[in-house]
Protein backbone atom coordinates (compact mmCIF):
# COMPACT_ATOMS: atom_id res chain seq x y z
CA UNK A 1 0.00 0.00 0.00
CA UNK A 2 1.25 3.48 -0.75
CA UNK A 3 2.78 5.02 2.31
CA UNK A 4 3.39 1.76 4.15
CA UNK A 5 7.11 2.40 4.08
CA UNK A 6 6.57 5.65 5.93
CA UNK A 7 4.54 3.89 8.60
CA UNK A 8 7.17 1.19 8.97
CA UNK A 9 9.78 3.87 9.49
CA UNK A 10 7.65 5.50 12.15
CA UNK A 11 7.25 2.12 13.85
CA UNK A 12 11.02 1.65 13.97
CA UNK A 13 11.61 4.99 15.61
CA UNK A 14 8.76 4.42 18.04
CA UNK A 15 10.29 1.11 19.02
CA UNK A 16 13.58 2.81 19.65
CA UNK A 17 11.92 5.53 21.69
CA UNK A 18 9.99 3.13 23.87
CA UNK A 19 12.85 0.66 24.09
CA UNK A 20 15.35 3.21 25.28
CA UNK A 21 13.64 3.21 28.66
CA UNK A 22 13.90 -0.49 29.44
CA UNK A 23 16.10 -2.19 26.87
CA UNK A 24 19.88 -1.76 27.28
CA UNK A 25 20.54 -2.44 23.59
CA UNK A 26 18.45 0.63 22.74
CA UNK A 27 20.29 2.97 25.11
CA UNK A 28 23.95 2.58 24.49
CA UNK A 29 25.22 5.74 26.12
CA UNK A 30 27.72 5.52 28.95
CA UNK A 31 27.29 8.71 30.89
CA UNK A 32 30.90 9.70 31.42
CA UNK A 33 32.22 10.73 33.95
CA UNK A 34 29.63 9.24 36.24
CA UNK A 35 29.93 5.88 34.51
CA UNK A 36 32.94 4.44 32.76
CA UNK A 37 33.02 1.61 30.27
CA UNK A 38 34.95 -1.50 31.25
CA UNK A 39 38.17 -1.42 29.30
CA UNK A 40 39.24 -4.56 27.47
CA UNK A 41 42.24 -6.34 28.97
CA UNK A 42 44.42 -5.62 25.96
CA UNK A 43 43.84 -1.88 26.19
CA UNK A 44 47.07 0.03 26.71
CA UNK A 45 47.91 3.69 26.99
CA UNK A 46 51.29 4.67 28.52
CA UNK A 47 53.90 2.55 30.36
CA UNK A 48 54.40 2.14 34.11
CA UNK A 49 57.05 0.54 36.30
CA UNK A 50 56.17 -2.53 38.38
CA UNK A 51 57.23 -2.82 42.02
CA UNK A 52 56.63 -6.00 43.98
CA UNK A 53 56.06 -4.73 47.51
CA UNK A 54 53.77 -1.75 48.11
CA UNK A 55 55.43 -1.19 51.49
CA UNK A 56 58.74 -0.37 49.79
CA UNK A 57 57.99 0.82 46.27
CA UNK A 58 61.41 2.34 45.57
CA UNK A 59 63.30 -0.63 46.85
CA UNK A 60 61.34 -3.38 45.09
CA UNK A 61 61.18 -1.82 41.60
CA UNK A 62 61.93 -4.55 39.14
CA UNK A 63 63.78 -2.08 36.94
CA UNK A 64 67.57 -2.39 37.07
CA UNK A 65 68.23 0.66 34.88
CA UNK A 66 69.71 -1.45 32.10
CA UNK A 67 68.55 1.28 29.65
CA UNK A 68 67.50 -1.22 26.99
CA UNK A 69 64.02 0.36 26.79
CA UNK A 70 65.59 3.83 26.49
CA UNK A 71 67.65 2.68 23.56
CA UNK A 72 64.83 0.77 21.85
CA UNK A 73 62.16 3.47 22.27
CA UNK A 74 61.45 4.81 18.74
CA UNK A 75 60.57 8.42 19.68
CA UNK A 76 63.13 8.35 22.52
CA UNK A 77 60.73 9.41 25.21
CA UNK A 78 62.44 7.54 28.11
CA UNK A 79 65.28 9.12 30.11
CA UNK A 80 67.08 6.92 32.65
CA UNK A 81 69.88 7.69 35.04
CA UNK A 82 71.34 4.77 37.01
CA UNK A 83 71.77 5.22 40.72
CA UNK A 84 75.40 5.07 41.75
CA UNK A 85 76.83 4.99 45.25
CA UNK A 86 79.61 7.29 46.54
CA UNK A 87 82.30 5.22 44.96
CA UNK A 88 80.60 5.29 41.54
CA UNK A 89 79.54 1.68 41.59
CA UNK A 90 76.23 1.05 39.82
CA UNK A 91 73.41 0.09 42.16
CA UNK A 92 70.87 -1.70 40.02
CA UNK A 93 68.14 0.90 40.46
CA UNK A 94 67.14 3.91 38.41
CA UNK A 95 67.70 7.27 40.09
CA UNK A 96 65.77 9.05 37.36
CA UNK A 97 63.24 7.34 35.14
CA UNK A 98 61.23 9.90 33.11
CA UNK A 99 58.76 9.19 30.35
CA UNK A 100 57.46 12.12 28.30
CA UNK A 101 53.91 11.03 27.50
CA UNK A 102 53.44 13.83 25.01
CA UNK A 103 56.04 11.97 22.92
CA UNK A 104 55.24 8.36 23.83
CA UNK A 105 53.31 6.65 21.07
CA UNK A 106 52.22 3.58 23.07
CA UNK A 107 54.01 1.18 20.75
CA UNK A 108 54.84 -1.19 23.66
CA UNK A 109 58.39 -1.85 22.36
CA UNK A 110 59.82 -0.97 25.79
CA UNK A 111 57.65 -3.70 27.29
CA UNK A 112 58.69 -6.20 24.67
CA UNK A 113 62.44 -5.70 25.15
CA UNK A 114 62.57 -5.42 28.94
CA UNK A 115 64.40 -8.51 30.24
CA UNK A 116 63.10 -8.10 33.77
CA UNK A 117 59.34 -7.60 33.27
CA UNK A 118 59.87 -4.25 34.89
CA UNK A 119 57.93 -1.98 32.56
CA UNK A 120 54.36 -2.78 31.51
CA UNK A 121 51.56 -0.87 29.80
CA UNK A 122 49.09 1.01 31.98
CA UNK A 123 45.43 1.72 31.15
CA UNK A 124 45.17 5.20 32.68
CA UNK A 125 43.77 7.67 30.13
CA UNK A 126 42.61 10.59 32.26
CA UNK A 127 45.97 12.32 32.06
CA UNK A 128 44.86 15.75 30.85
CA UNK A 129 46.69 18.57 32.58
CA UNK A 130 46.97 22.33 32.39
CA UNK A 131 50.76 22.32 32.43
CA UNK A 132 51.80 21.65 28.89
CA UNK A 133 55.41 20.73 29.58
CA UNK A 134 55.86 19.63 33.15
CA UNK A 135 52.48 18.03 33.49
CA UNK A 136 53.13 15.53 30.71
CA UNK A 137 56.53 14.42 31.98
CA UNK A 138 56.03 11.46 34.32
CA UNK A 139 58.77 10.70 36.85
CA UNK A 140 59.73 7.50 38.56
CA UNK A 141 57.34 8.06 41.48
CA UNK A 142 54.37 8.67 39.13
CA UNK A 143 55.28 5.63 37.07
CA UNK A 144 55.85 3.21 39.91
CA UNK A 145 52.79 1.03 40.54
CA UNK A 146 52.41 -2.23 42.39
CA UNK A 147 52.18 -5.74 41.07
CA UNK A 148 48.66 -6.00 42.55
CA UNK A 149 47.63 -3.08 40.36
CA UNK A 150 49.18 -4.91 37.39
CA UNK A 151 47.07 -7.95 38.27
CA UNK A 152 43.96 -5.78 38.35
CA UNK A 153 44.41 -4.26 34.93
CA UNK A 154 45.96 -7.19 33.00
CA UNK A 155 45.07 -10.32 34.98
CA UNK A 156 46.07 -12.95 32.43
CA UNK A 157 49.24 -11.20 31.47
CA UNK A 158 50.23 -10.59 35.08
CA UNK A 159 49.54 -14.20 35.98
CA UNK A 160 51.78 -15.33 33.14
CA UNK A 161 54.53 -12.95 34.17
CA UNK A 162 54.31 -14.06 37.78
CA UNK A 163 54.46 -17.71 36.74
CA UNK A 164 57.47 -17.07 34.54
CA UNK A 165 59.26 -15.14 37.26
CA UNK A 166 58.48 -17.85 39.81
CA UNK A 167 59.78 -20.51 37.47
CA UNK A 168 62.90 -18.47 36.84
CA UNK A 169 63.42 -18.03 40.56
CA UNK A 170 62.94 -21.74 41.15
CA UNK A 171 65.51 -22.55 38.47
CA UNK A 172 67.96 -20.08 39.94
CA UNK A 173 67.41 -21.53 43.39
CA UNK A 174 67.90 -25.02 42.02
CA UNK A 175 71.00 -23.91 40.19
CA UNK A 176 72.35 -22.32 43.36
CA UNK A 177 71.58 -25.44 45.35
CA UNK A 178 73.19 -27.58 42.70
CA UNK A 179 76.24 -25.33 42.65
CA UNK A 180 76.48 -25.49 46.44
CA UNK A 181 75.96 -29.27 46.46
CA UNK A 182 78.85 -30.31 44.12
CA UNK A 183 81.12 -27.82 45.99
CA UNK A 184 80.84 -30.00 49.10
CA UNK A 185 81.24 -33.52 47.62
CA UNK A 186 83.78 -32.20 45.08
CA UNK A 187 86.88 -32.89 47.26
CA UNK A 188 85.31 -36.25 48.11
CA UNK A 189 84.69 -37.03 44.40
CA UNK A 190 88.21 -36.02 43.47
CA UNK A 191 89.53 -38.80 45.73
CA UNK A 192 87.24 -41.34 44.04
CA UNK A 193 87.68 -42.55 40.48
CA UNK A 194 87.31 -39.95 37.83
CA UNK A 195 85.82 -42.40 35.36
CA UNK A 196 82.45 -42.88 37.02
CA UNK A 197 80.32 -39.77 36.93
CA UNK A 198 78.47 -39.68 40.20
CA UNK A 199 74.75 -39.19 39.99
CA UNK A 200 75.01 -36.18 42.33
CA UNK A 201 77.04 -33.94 40.00
CA UNK A 202 75.40 -35.20 36.78
CA UNK A 203 72.04 -33.58 37.35
CA UNK A 204 74.00 -30.48 38.34
CA UNK A 205 76.10 -30.82 35.19
CA UNK A 206 73.00 -31.33 33.13
CA UNK A 207 71.08 -28.50 34.72
CA UNK A 208 73.91 -26.02 35.07
CA UNK A 209 73.99 -24.97 31.43
CA UNK A 210 70.19 -24.84 31.46
CA UNK A 211 69.79 -22.10 34.09
CA UNK A 212 72.38 -20.06 32.24
CA UNK A 213 70.39 -20.41 29.05
CA UNK A 214 66.85 -20.07 30.37
CA UNK A 215 66.94 -16.63 32.05
CA UNK A 216 67.38 -14.75 28.81
CA UNK A 217 65.01 -17.14 27.07
CA UNK A 218 62.38 -17.34 29.80
CA UNK A 219 61.91 -13.62 30.20
CA UNK A 220 60.75 -12.64 26.71
CA UNK A 221 58.74 -15.76 25.99
CA UNK A 222 55.82 -15.49 28.46
CA UNK A 223 55.04 -11.79 28.02
CA UNK A 224 55.42 -11.90 24.28
CA UNK A 225 52.29 -13.99 23.82
CA UNK A 226 49.63 -12.83 26.20
CA UNK A 227 46.55 -14.88 25.59
CA UNK A 228 43.84 -12.87 23.84
CA UNK A 229 40.98 -12.06 26.12
CA UNK A 230 37.49 -10.89 25.28
Amino acid at each position, binding site marked *: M*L*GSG*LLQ*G*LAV*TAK*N*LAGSFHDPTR*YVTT*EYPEQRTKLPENYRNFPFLVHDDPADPAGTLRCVACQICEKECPPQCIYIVMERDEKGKALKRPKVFDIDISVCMSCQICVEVCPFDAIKMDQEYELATRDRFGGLLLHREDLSKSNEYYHQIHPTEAAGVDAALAEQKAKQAAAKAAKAAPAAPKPAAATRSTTAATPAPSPAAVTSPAPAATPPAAAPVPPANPPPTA
Partner: protein
Amino acid sequence: MSAPAANPLPLLERLPVALRDACTNWLPESWRWLANSLLSIVAVFVVFATLFALLTLAERKILGRVQNRPGPNRAPLPFLGLRTYGLAQPLADGIKMLTKEDIVPRGADRVLHFLAPVALLAFSIMTFAVIPYGRTLLPVELDAAVLYFFAAGAATELAIFMAGWASRNKYSLLAAMRALAQLISYELPLLLSVVPVVLVAGSLSTSVIVEKQGAWLFGILPQWHVFTPWGFAGFLIFFVAALAESNRSPFDLPEAESELIAGHLTEYSGFKYALFFMAEYFGMCALSGMGVTLFLGGWQAPFPALGFIPSYCWFAAKLLALLFVFMWIRATFPRLRIDQLTRLAWKFLVPLALVNLFTAAFWVLSAGWAGPLAFARWVVAGALVIGPFLALGRRLSAGLGPRSYRYA
Protein backbone atom coordinates in the same frame (compact mmCIF):
# COMPACT_ATOMS: atom_id res chain seq x y z
CA MET B 1 -16.01 35.35 26.73
CA SER B 2 -18.63 34.79 29.45
CA ALA B 3 -20.00 31.61 31.00
CA PRO B 4 -23.64 30.78 30.16
CA ALA B 5 -25.92 31.89 32.96
CA ALA B 6 -28.33 28.96 32.73
CA ASN B 7 -26.13 26.07 33.95
CA PRO B 8 -22.92 27.30 35.61
CA LEU B 9 -19.81 25.42 34.56
CA PRO B 10 -17.83 23.38 37.06
CA LEU B 11 -15.16 25.17 39.05
CA LEU B 12 -12.07 23.99 37.15
CA GLU B 13 -13.71 25.00 33.90
CA ARG B 14 -14.52 28.47 35.18
CA LEU B 15 -11.16 28.97 36.86
CA PRO B 16 -9.22 30.95 34.22
CA VAL B 17 -12.05 33.38 33.50
CA ALA B 18 -12.78 33.75 37.22
CA LEU B 19 -9.14 34.60 37.87
CA ARG B 20 -9.16 37.15 35.11
CA ASP B 21 -12.36 38.73 36.40
CA ALA B 22 -10.94 38.85 39.91
CA CYS B 23 -8.05 40.89 38.55
CA THR B 24 -10.09 43.35 36.53
CA ASN B 25 -13.47 43.64 38.20
CA TRP B 26 -12.47 46.73 40.13
CA LEU B 27 -11.90 48.69 36.91
CA PRO B 28 -14.64 50.91 35.44
CA GLU B 29 -16.72 49.31 32.68
CA SER B 30 -15.11 51.17 29.79
CA TRP B 31 -11.60 50.10 30.78
CA ARG B 32 -12.51 46.52 31.52
CA TRP B 33 -12.51 45.32 27.94
CA LEU B 34 -9.01 46.68 27.37
CA ALA B 35 -7.69 45.17 30.60
CA ASN B 36 -9.26 41.81 29.83
CA SER B 37 -7.72 41.79 26.37
CA LEU B 38 -4.32 42.73 27.71
CA LEU B 39 -4.51 40.02 30.33
CA SER B 40 -5.44 37.38 27.77
CA ILE B 41 -2.58 38.53 25.52
CA VAL B 42 -0.14 38.27 28.40
CA ALA B 43 -1.50 34.87 29.41
CA VAL B 44 -1.27 33.45 25.88
CA PHE B 45 2.21 34.82 25.44
CA VAL B 46 3.48 33.50 28.78
CA VAL B 47 1.98 30.06 28.20
CA PHE B 48 3.37 29.70 24.72
CA ALA B 49 6.77 31.12 25.57
CA THR B 50 7.09 28.55 28.36
CA LEU B 51 5.83 25.88 26.00
CA PHE B 52 8.47 26.97 23.49
CA ALA B 53 11.22 26.55 26.07
CA LEU B 54 9.97 23.14 27.11
CA LEU B 55 9.43 22.12 23.50
CA THR B 56 13.05 22.73 22.58
CA LEU B 57 14.05 20.50 25.48
CA ALA B 58 11.41 17.87 24.66
CA GLU B 59 12.51 17.80 21.06
CA ARG B 60 16.12 17.19 21.99
CA LYS B 61 15.20 14.54 24.54
CA ILE B 62 12.81 12.72 22.23
CA LEU B 63 15.23 12.84 19.31
CA GLY B 64 17.92 11.61 21.66
CA ARG B 65 15.91 8.67 22.92
CA VAL B 66 14.98 7.68 19.39
CA GLN B 67 18.68 7.76 18.57
CA ASN B 68 19.59 5.49 21.52
CA ARG B 69 21.04 8.25 23.66
CA PRO B 70 19.74 10.49 26.44
CA GLY B 71 19.03 14.06 25.42
CA PRO B 72 20.60 16.91 27.37
CA ASN B 73 20.60 15.94 31.03
CA ARG B 74 23.45 17.91 32.48
CA ALA B 75 22.58 21.59 32.67
CA PRO B 76 22.34 22.47 36.36
CA LEU B 77 20.31 25.25 37.96
CA PRO B 78 22.42 28.43 38.09
CA PHE B 79 23.43 28.92 41.71
CA LEU B 80 22.21 25.69 43.22
CA GLY B 81 24.26 23.38 41.07
CA LEU B 82 21.39 20.92 41.02
CA ARG B 83 21.03 18.76 37.94
CA THR B 84 17.44 18.39 36.93
CA TYR B 85 17.36 15.79 34.14
CA GLY B 86 17.89 18.58 31.66
CA LEU B 87 14.99 20.79 32.68
CA ALA B 88 17.35 23.71 33.17
CA GLN B 89 18.65 23.31 29.61
CA PRO B 90 16.25 25.88 28.09
CA LEU B 91 17.42 28.35 30.73
CA ALA B 92 21.02 27.68 29.76
CA ASP B 93 20.17 28.08 26.08
CA GLY B 94 18.38 31.34 26.75
CA ILE B 95 21.32 32.75 28.69
CA LYS B 96 23.66 31.67 25.92
CA MET B 97 21.54 33.34 23.25
CA LEU B 98 21.22 36.55 25.23
CA THR B 99 24.93 36.86 25.88
CA LYS B 100 26.06 36.16 22.34
CA GLU B 101 27.44 38.99 20.30
CA ASP B 102 24.97 40.36 17.80
CA ILE B 103 26.82 40.49 14.49
CA VAL B 104 25.35 42.40 11.55
CA PRO B 105 27.33 42.20 8.29
CA ARG B 106 28.87 45.49 7.25
CA GLY B 107 26.95 45.96 4.03
CA ALA B 108 23.70 44.64 5.39
CA ASP B 109 20.53 46.67 5.46
CA ARG B 110 20.44 47.32 9.20
CA VAL B 111 16.81 48.35 9.43
CA LEU B 112 15.51 45.35 7.53
CA HIS B 113 17.97 43.04 9.29
CA PHE B 114 16.53 44.15 12.61
CA LEU B 115 12.90 44.17 11.48
CA ALA B 116 12.82 40.70 9.96
CA PRO B 117 12.72 38.64 13.18
CA VAL B 118 10.48 41.24 14.80
CA ALA B 119 7.93 41.08 11.99
CA LEU B 120 8.09 37.29 11.87
CA LEU B 121 7.49 36.96 15.58
CA ALA B 122 4.74 39.59 15.56
CA PHE B 123 2.74 37.84 12.87
CA SER B 124 3.31 34.42 14.42
CA ILE B 125 1.97 35.63 17.76
CA MET B 126 -0.98 37.28 16.08
CA THR B 127 -2.14 33.89 14.83
CA PHE B 128 -2.70 32.73 18.40
CA ALA B 129 -5.60 35.10 18.85
CA VAL B 130 -8.33 32.99 17.25
CA ILE B 131 -7.61 29.52 18.61
CA PRO B 132 -10.15 28.37 21.20
CA TYR B 133 -8.10 26.98 24.06
CA GLY B 134 -11.11 26.02 26.14
CA ARG B 135 -14.85 26.41 26.35
CA THR B 136 -14.56 30.00 27.54
CA LEU B 137 -10.99 30.68 26.49
CA LEU B 138 -11.07 32.28 23.05
CA PRO B 139 -9.01 35.47 23.05
CA VAL B 140 -10.76 37.17 20.12
CA GLU B 141 -14.14 36.11 18.81
CA LEU B 142 -14.12 36.80 15.11
CA ASP B 143 -16.65 35.98 12.46
CA ALA B 144 -13.92 35.22 9.92
CA ALA B 145 -11.45 33.67 12.36
CA VAL B 146 -10.03 31.03 10.02
CA LEU B 147 -9.38 33.66 7.34
CA TYR B 148 -7.64 35.87 9.91
CA PHE B 149 -5.44 32.97 10.97
CA PHE B 150 -4.25 32.25 7.48
CA ALA B 151 -3.86 35.92 6.60
CA ALA B 152 -1.54 36.47 9.56
CA GLY B 153 0.33 33.31 8.66
CA ALA B 154 0.82 34.45 5.07
CA ALA B 155 2.34 37.69 6.26
CA THR B 156 5.17 35.75 7.94
CA GLU B 157 6.54 34.84 4.53
CA LEU B 158 7.43 38.46 3.96
CA ALA B 159 9.68 38.43 7.00
CA ILE B 160 11.64 35.49 5.61
CA PHE B 161 12.29 37.42 2.45
CA MET B 162 13.39 40.42 4.49
CA ALA B 163 15.81 38.23 6.41
CA GLY B 164 17.34 36.80 3.26
CA TRP B 165 17.58 40.13 1.47
CA ALA B 166 18.89 42.21 4.33
CA SER B 167 21.84 39.90 4.99
CA ARG B 168 23.70 41.01 1.85
CA ASN B 169 24.72 37.45 1.20
CA LYS B 170 23.87 35.83 -2.10
CA TYR B 171 23.51 32.46 -0.45
CA SER B 172 21.07 33.82 2.11
CA LEU B 173 19.07 35.40 -0.68
CA LEU B 174 19.02 32.19 -2.66
CA ALA B 175 17.94 30.24 0.38
CA ALA B 176 15.26 32.85 1.18
CA MET B 177 13.92 32.44 -2.35
CA ARG B 178 13.79 28.70 -1.90
CA ALA B 179 12.09 29.10 1.46
CA LEU B 180 9.52 31.42 -0.11
CA ALA B 181 8.89 28.96 -2.91
CA GLN B 182 8.29 26.25 -0.35
CA LEU B 183 5.98 28.41 1.76
CA ILE B 184 3.94 29.62 -1.19
CA SER B 185 3.63 26.12 -2.61
CA TYR B 186 2.27 24.73 0.61
CA GLU B 187 -0.14 27.60 1.30
CA LEU B 188 -2.41 26.09 -1.29
CA PRO B 189 -2.86 22.58 0.19
CA LEU B 190 -3.11 24.15 3.64
CA LEU B 191 -5.99 26.37 2.67
CA LEU B 192 -7.65 23.81 0.44
CA SER B 193 -7.68 21.23 3.21
CA VAL B 194 -9.41 23.70 5.51
CA VAL B 195 -12.16 24.60 3.02
CA PRO B 196 -14.07 21.28 3.49
CA VAL B 197 -14.15 21.92 7.25
CA VAL B 198 -15.68 25.34 6.67
CA LEU B 199 -18.07 23.78 4.17
CA VAL B 200 -19.30 21.17 6.61
CA ALA B 201 -19.39 23.44 9.66
CA GLY B 202 -20.98 26.27 7.75
CA SER B 203 -18.94 28.97 9.40
CA LEU B 204 -15.49 30.53 9.45
CA SER B 205 -15.61 31.04 13.20
CA THR B 206 -13.41 28.66 15.16
CA SER B 207 -15.72 28.49 18.16
CA VAL B 208 -18.62 27.41 15.93
CA ILE B 209 -16.41 24.78 14.24
CA VAL B 210 -15.45 23.31 17.61
CA GLU B 211 -19.03 23.29 18.82
CA LYS B 212 -20.20 21.51 15.68
CA GLN B 213 -17.87 18.61 16.61
CA GLY B 214 -19.45 18.22 20.00
CA ALA B 215 -21.91 15.42 19.39
CA TRP B 216 -21.24 11.75 20.05
CA LEU B 217 -22.27 8.99 17.68
CA PHE B 218 -24.18 6.22 19.48
CA GLY B 219 -23.36 8.13 22.64
CA ILE B 220 -19.71 7.09 22.76
CA LEU B 221 -17.92 7.80 19.46
CA PRO B 222 -16.81 11.43 19.09
CA GLN B 223 -17.94 13.13 15.92
CA TRP B 224 -14.72 14.96 15.29
CA HIS B 225 -13.96 15.79 11.70
CA VAL B 226 -10.95 13.51 11.66
CA PHE B 227 -13.22 10.51 12.07
CA THR B 228 -14.91 11.07 8.71
CA PRO B 229 -13.32 10.04 5.39
CA TRP B 230 -12.93 13.56 4.07
CA GLY B 231 -11.81 14.77 7.49
CA PHE B 232 -9.13 12.11 7.76
CA ALA B 233 -7.73 12.92 4.35
CA GLY B 234 -8.05 16.63 5.07
CA PHE B 235 -6.23 16.23 8.37
CA LEU B 236 -3.36 14.37 6.73
CA ILE B 237 -3.03 16.99 4.01
CA PHE B 238 -3.25 19.77 6.60
CA PHE B 239 -0.61 18.07 8.71
CA VAL B 240 1.85 17.68 5.85
CA ALA B 241 1.25 21.25 4.74
CA ALA B 242 1.68 22.45 8.33
CA LEU B 243 5.02 20.62 8.51
CA ALA B 244 6.11 22.46 5.40
CA GLU B 245 4.71 25.82 6.46
CA SER B 246 6.63 25.78 9.72
CA ASN B 247 9.85 24.64 8.02
CA ARG B 248 9.98 21.40 9.99
CA SER B 249 11.67 18.23 8.99
CA PRO B 250 11.33 16.65 6.46
CA PHE B 251 10.71 20.03 4.84
CA ASP B 252 13.40 21.92 6.71
CA LEU B 253 15.49 22.70 3.63
CA PRO B 254 15.53 26.45 4.38
CA GLU B 255 17.28 26.06 7.68
CA ALA B 256 19.12 22.77 7.57
CA GLU B 257 22.79 22.87 8.49
CA SER B 258 23.90 21.15 5.35
CA GLU B 259 21.98 23.54 3.11
CA LEU B 260 23.73 26.86 2.51
CA ILE B 261 24.81 26.97 6.16
CA ALA B 262 21.56 28.10 7.74
CA GLY B 263 19.73 29.44 4.74
CA HIS B 264 18.19 32.82 5.28
CA LEU B 265 19.33 32.76 8.91
CA THR B 266 23.02 32.59 8.10
CA GLU B 267 23.86 36.14 9.10
CA TYR B 268 21.85 36.08 12.30
CA SER B 269 23.42 35.43 15.67
CA GLY B 270 22.47 35.65 19.29
CA PHE B 271 19.07 36.84 20.28
CA LYS B 272 17.78 37.48 16.76
CA TYR B 273 18.46 33.85 15.92
CA ALA B 274 16.60 32.85 19.05
CA LEU B 275 13.68 35.00 17.87
CA PHE B 276 13.60 33.21 14.54
CA PHE B 277 13.67 29.92 16.36
CA MET B 278 10.89 31.07 18.63
CA ALA B 279 8.83 32.18 15.65
CA GLU B 280 9.25 28.77 14.06
CA TYR B 281 8.05 27.02 17.19
CA PHE B 282 5.20 29.45 17.61
CA GLY B 283 4.17 28.74 14.03
CA MET B 284 4.29 25.05 14.79
CA CYS B 285 2.16 25.48 17.92
CA ALA B 286 -0.32 27.74 16.16
CA LEU B 287 -0.75 25.37 13.24
CA SER B 288 -1.09 22.42 15.59
CA GLY B 289 -3.65 24.38 17.58
CA MET B 290 -5.58 25.14 14.42
CA GLY B 291 -5.36 21.51 13.37
CA VAL B 292 -6.75 20.45 16.73
CA THR B 293 -9.55 22.99 16.41
CA LEU B 294 -10.53 22.14 12.87
CA PHE B 295 -10.14 18.38 12.82
CA LEU B 296 -9.64 16.96 16.29
CA GLY B 297 -12.58 18.55 18.03
CA GLY B 298 -10.76 21.39 19.75
CA TRP B 299 -11.46 21.33 23.48
CA GLN B 300 -14.09 18.57 23.26
CA ALA B 301 -13.58 15.46 25.34
CA PRO B 302 -13.49 12.17 23.39
CA PHE B 303 -16.03 10.42 25.61
CA PRO B 304 -18.89 12.01 27.52
CA ALA B 305 -17.83 10.19 30.67
CA LEU B 306 -14.55 12.10 30.66
CA GLY B 307 -16.29 15.45 30.54
CA PHE B 308 -15.24 16.29 34.08
CA ILE B 309 -11.72 16.99 32.91
CA PRO B 310 -11.61 20.71 32.01
CA SER B 311 -11.74 21.65 28.34
CA TYR B 312 -8.38 23.39 28.29
CA CYS B 313 -6.74 20.19 29.54
CA TRP B 314 -8.19 18.31 26.59
CA PHE B 315 -6.94 20.98 24.23
CA ALA B 316 -3.50 20.86 25.82
CA ALA B 317 -3.40 17.06 25.58
CA LYS B 318 -4.32 17.07 21.89
CA LEU B 319 -1.87 19.88 21.16
CA LEU B 320 0.95 18.06 22.92
CA ALA B 321 0.09 14.87 21.05
CA LEU B 322 0.32 16.67 17.71
CA LEU B 323 3.60 18.30 18.71
CA PHE B 324 4.94 14.89 19.69
CA VAL B 325 4.02 13.61 16.24
CA PHE B 326 5.89 16.58 14.74
CA MET B 327 8.99 15.50 16.62
CA TRP B 328 8.48 11.84 15.87
CA ILE B 329 8.36 12.67 12.18
CA ARG B 330 11.50 14.77 12.48
CA ALA B 331 13.31 11.82 14.03
CA THR B 332 12.21 9.44 11.30
CA PHE B 333 12.28 10.90 7.81
CA PRO B 334 15.14 12.24 5.69
CA ARG B 335 14.94 15.71 4.23
CA LEU B 336 13.23 16.41 0.93
CA ARG B 337 15.01 18.27 -1.85
CA ILE B 338 13.47 21.48 -3.12
CA ASP B 339 12.22 19.92 -6.33
CA GLN B 340 10.77 16.96 -4.44
CA LEU B 341 9.06 19.38 -2.05
CA THR B 342 7.44 21.45 -4.73
CA ARG B 343 6.48 18.41 -6.75
CA LEU B 344 4.80 16.91 -3.68
CA ALA B 345 2.84 20.11 -3.10
CA TRP B 346 1.68 20.84 -6.62
CA LYS B 347 1.30 17.40 -8.13
CA PHE B 348 0.12 15.38 -5.17
CA LEU B 349 -1.36 17.46 -2.37
CA VAL B 350 -3.25 20.06 -4.40
CA PRO B 351 -5.16 17.54 -6.57
CA LEU B 352 -5.92 15.42 -3.51
CA ALA B 353 -7.14 18.47 -1.61
CA LEU B 354 -9.44 19.39 -4.50
CA VAL B 355 -10.81 15.85 -4.61
CA ASN B 356 -11.27 16.03 -0.84
CA LEU B 357 -13.36 19.16 -1.31
CA PHE B 358 -15.56 17.21 -3.67
CA THR B 359 -15.81 14.35 -1.15
CA ALA B 360 -16.84 16.77 1.59
CA ALA B 361 -19.47 18.25 -0.69
CA PHE B 362 -20.85 14.77 -1.31
CA TRP B 363 -20.81 14.15 2.46
CA VAL B 364 -22.83 17.29 3.11
CA LEU B 365 -25.31 16.55 0.35
CA SER B 366 -25.80 12.98 1.58
CA ALA B 367 -26.30 13.97 5.20
CA GLY B 368 -29.87 12.80 5.07
CA TRP B 369 -29.07 9.21 4.12
CA ALA B 370 -30.04 6.83 6.87
CA GLY B 371 -30.08 3.12 7.56
CA PRO B 372 -28.20 0.99 5.02
CA LEU B 373 -27.64 4.15 2.93
CA ALA B 374 -25.53 5.53 5.79
CA PHE B 375 -23.16 2.60 5.26
CA ALA B 376 -23.16 3.31 1.51
CA ARG B 377 -22.35 6.92 2.24
CA TRP B 378 -19.25 5.89 4.17
CA VAL B 379 -18.20 3.45 1.45
CA VAL B 380 -18.57 5.98 -1.34
CA ALA B 381 -16.78 8.71 0.61
CA GLY B 382 -14.01 6.30 1.56
CA ALA B 383 -13.58 5.24 -2.06
CA LEU B 384 -13.44 8.88 -3.13
CA VAL B 385 -10.64 9.44 -0.65
CA ILE B 386 -8.60 6.27 -1.08
CA GLY B 387 -9.01 5.83 -4.83
CA PRO B 388 -7.39 9.05 -6.05
CA PHE B 389 -4.72 8.74 -3.33
CA LEU B 390 -3.61 5.33 -4.57
CA ALA B 391 -4.00 6.15 -8.24
CA LEU B 392 -2.12 9.44 -8.05
CA GLY B 393 0.55 7.97 -5.84
CA ARG B 394 1.11 5.06 -8.18
CA ARG B 395 1.25 7.33 -11.18
CA LEU B 396 3.69 9.79 -9.64
CA SER B 397 6.04 7.12 -8.35
CA ALA B 398 5.84 5.13 -11.57
CA GLY B 399 9.47 5.17 -12.58
CA LEU B 400 10.82 5.02 -9.05
CA GLY B 401 11.22 1.87 -7.14
CA PRO B 402 13.70 0.01 -4.96
CA ARG B 403 17.10 0.60 -6.44
CA SER B 404 18.95 -2.28 -7.99
CA TYR B 405 22.69 -2.11 -8.01
CA ARG B 406 24.93 -3.67 -10.60
CA TYR B 407 28.47 -4.21 -9.53
CA ALA B 408 31.10 -4.22 -12.23
